[in-house]
């Protein structure tokens, strides 16, 4: 049963893909509650169906078992309450920073002046003021990801869903951007759901972390992170932080090595040309 402050619920989610080597269960019977205003991370080894789950919750993937509800309402397809930030670079290269961020406002039919004001607010929020009229091609990877973040925030989603948004960035930029996201989350009291394979990132940001198993992706354990807020990347050095990281790595190691073995076997069969 969902708690009273649950804003998003994914219930008994199952996703099966047909491949040439038979069906693969990407996600199996996974249930997840996201509470209003919390930062929840989903962590798991590669191939555990994290991104599949992201697509299910974001409404980009159909044909799954179970259901996704937002504030009690079952959703099918993309929903305006859910804003998505993607792993790959997803800014529109033909639009300036401000026009990128104003994109959802333009769709909502806002007047030009009003949406410029709103867009500027979100550009400032992600710390890109002064870059309004630049094109993404003129910015660094980290800055472009912040443009994507601002664009999604501008649509004022109830839940911000992020799929490894900083995976392509270097570790230092990633930590600093993590700070930025935390700051924004605290400022807006934004509910955030982060998909990641990075333990440090997950512990740095989250109130709770869901650890997933390797294929089929199931919920292995839900870890509450009782670190003080407001947080910043400085917390990375603390003893409590280290304990959480170790604890989660303990859970993950088994899954990750299972994944690795599986991949090795797969590669072996393919190279020897034999049947699985």
């Amino acid at each position, binding site marked *: 049963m969902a708690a009273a402050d649950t804003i998003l619920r994914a219930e008994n989610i199952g996703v099966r893909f047909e491949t040439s080597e038979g069906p693969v269960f990407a996600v199996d019977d996974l249930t997840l509650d996201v509470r209003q205003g919390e930062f929840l991370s989903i962590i798991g080894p590669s191939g555990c169906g994290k991104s599949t789950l992201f697509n299910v919750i974001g409404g*980009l993937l159909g044909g799954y078992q179970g259901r996704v509800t937002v504030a009690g309402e079952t959703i099918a*397809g*993309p*929903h305006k309450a859910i804003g998505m930030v*993607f792993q790959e670079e*997803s800014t529109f290269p*033909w639009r300036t920073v401000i026009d990128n961020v104003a994109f959802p406002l333009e*769709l909502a039919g806002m007047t030009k002046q009003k949406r410029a004001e709103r867009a500027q607010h979100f550009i400032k929020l992600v710390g890109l003021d002064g870059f309004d009229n630049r094109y993404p*091609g003129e910015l660094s990877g980290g800055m472009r990801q912040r443009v994507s973040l601002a664009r999604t925030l501008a649509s004022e989603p109830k839940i911000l869903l992020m799929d490894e948004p900083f995976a392509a960035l270097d570790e230092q930029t990633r930590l600093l951007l993590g700070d930025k996201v935390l700051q924004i989350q605290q400022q807006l009291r934004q509910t955030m759901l982060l998909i990641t394979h990075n333990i440090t990132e997950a512990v740095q940001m989250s109130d709770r972390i869901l650890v997933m198993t390797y294929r089929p992706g199931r919920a292995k354990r839900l870890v509450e992170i009782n670190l003080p807020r407001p947080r910043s990347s400085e917390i990375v050095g603390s003893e409590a932080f280290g304990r959480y990281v170790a604890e989660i790595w303990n859970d993950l190691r088994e899954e990750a090595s299972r994944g690795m073995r599986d991949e090795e076997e797969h590669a072996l069969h393919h190279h020897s040309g034999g049947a699985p």
Partner: protein
Amino acid sequence: MSGSAIARSNAAPKLLGFVSVLLFFAVIEAVIRAGWLNRYIVPPPSEILGSFYRIIAEEHVLRRFLFTTAECFAAGVMITVFGVGLGVLLQRYELLRRACETWVAALAAAPVVLAYPLFMVIFGRNAVTIVMIAFVAALPAVILKTIEGIAGTRRVLLNVGKSFNLTPAQQFWKIQFPAALPVIFTGLRLGLIFALINVVGVEFLINYGGLGQLIEDLAERYDLAGTYAAIFFVILVSVLFFMALERIERWLRPVD
């Protein structure tokens, strides 16, 4: 200004290009004057330069230049409207694309210009024939590049559109089309090259209209210096279109 400062400046490539061309002509001139090249096959550049006044004053090359430019412009507008339009249509309807793409690709390689008698029967010996042949010859490149550009839109950009709940029309106009523009412009550039070649070629073949006809006239009279000077104006048409196209592209997509 020091040597390295000149190399870094914006004017350097243009200057180098200009000097290279001058140098090339100087070498040709020297080779002809030395008698290593027959001046009745390749006229010396100085003679070509001297013939400019003649072809401007006596052969009305400027009027012909405008005529050829207008024909190219007409063909250019047509390949943009129909080429991009058909490309979009084929991209949108899978069955249609799979049915037609091979034929369009085959047409791209076909020497359409050889069908000029057919066009003359249909349209007469006039500018319409010239524009239509150029149009048909240039169309496939634009269609194929439009299909390629739209199909090549990055998946994540389409997902961004979906996540914002765009309608199919919005998805196309706000994401796929602008994302495809650089590739579409490559198609238009190719198309304009084909169009210009065909315009001048057909003018030459049917002895009608602008620069192509003039080149044919001058060559018939064995006025080689004049012929080369007229070819210079053909190049000018091409340069003009390329510059215009680049302007339009920069205006539509300022930075990539």
